[in-house]
């Protein structure tokens, strides 16, 4: 009976004629296969947040080791991948906290003077968008852009141009969906510095993808 069931499972779910529920993952847990089953997924998840291959590899290792230690806490209710990803999220936040501790807070992180030329005008409308540097009507459609790998390459390069701490603040907010207070206490930031850095990231990214994607001819 047991052998029959194993054989059926080995044959894959496609052969199943009945609608009996698929056995829970609880007894399928197999740490030896984690690297092959979820390694790349976890690595990419970490890479897009940390933008550094070595750090991303490190957090994947830390995550799997931590998971191994806490195997008993795995309830089997979430899928293996969801469970590992939840651990990874914590490890990424730890990693970001550490790397922000290493780099002292730069006053330039909250310096917005690079945008001053965008708001310089010869006429009486002081502080309004310059005619030549204001946001343009884009040549290419945003709906098309998100279908293309090249666009995300441009977006990544634009993220890479942000100062490290600014990029971390922005990704923590946009991707991990931590709230403002959590990020501020994690990175020891004042709320006003947080808002300035978010604004800086938005200004830079919008302009960068405008120049490098949306105003370029196809």
């Amino acid at each position: 009976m047991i052998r029959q069931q194993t054989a059926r499972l080995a044959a894959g779910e496609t052969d199943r004629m009945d609608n009996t529920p698929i056995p829970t993952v609880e007894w399928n847990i197999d740490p030896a296969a984690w690297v092959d089953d979820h390694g790349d997924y976890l690595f990419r998840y970490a890479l897009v947040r940390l933008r550094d291959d070595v750090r991303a590899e490190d957090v994947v290792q830390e995550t799997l080791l931590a998971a191994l230690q806490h195997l008993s806490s795995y309830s089997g209710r979430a899928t293996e991948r969801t469970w590992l990803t939840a651990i990874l999220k914590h490890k990424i936040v730890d990693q970001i906290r550490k790397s922000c501790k290493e780099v002292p807070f730069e006053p330039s992180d909250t310096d917005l003077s690079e945008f001053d030329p965008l708001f310089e005008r010869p006429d009486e409308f002081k502080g309004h968008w310059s005619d030549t540097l204001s946001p343009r009507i884009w040549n290419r459609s945003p709906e098309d852009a998100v279908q293309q790998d090249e666009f995300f390459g441009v977006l990544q390069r634009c993220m890479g141009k942000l100062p490290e701490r600014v990029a971390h603040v922005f990704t923590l907010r946009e991707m991990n969906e931590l709230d403002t207070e959590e990020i501020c206490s994690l990175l020891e930031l004042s709320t006003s510095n947080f808002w300035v850095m978010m604004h800086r990231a938005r200004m830079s990214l919008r302009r960068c993808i405008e120049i490098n994607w949306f105003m370029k001819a196809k």
Partner: protein
Amino acid sequence: MSELTIYQRITKFFRRTILRTFPSCKEIVHVISASLDRPLTLRERFLMKLHLFACKPCVRYLDQSAFVSQAIKIMDEREKLDLFAGSLSDSARSRIKSALATAS
């Protein structure tokens, strides 16, 4: 036809008055950025709406920044699933495997 021109002239007059009297684009873009992250105060909402009525580039700044946010989230989803975004190097793969084997 001439009535439309009068309407346009009135609108133009209001727009210029708003731009001259109320906070400039340089200040309003902070509010627009913040609007993507948190609920605005009543005062901020009023100033932003008023300004957006008068200023087309700021409307574009809002729309395009909202798109950036959306694109970041789409990138996050795609990166996890698509191989183009990279994979564990062979050395890291074997290092992690042996670390796991030692620990278990």
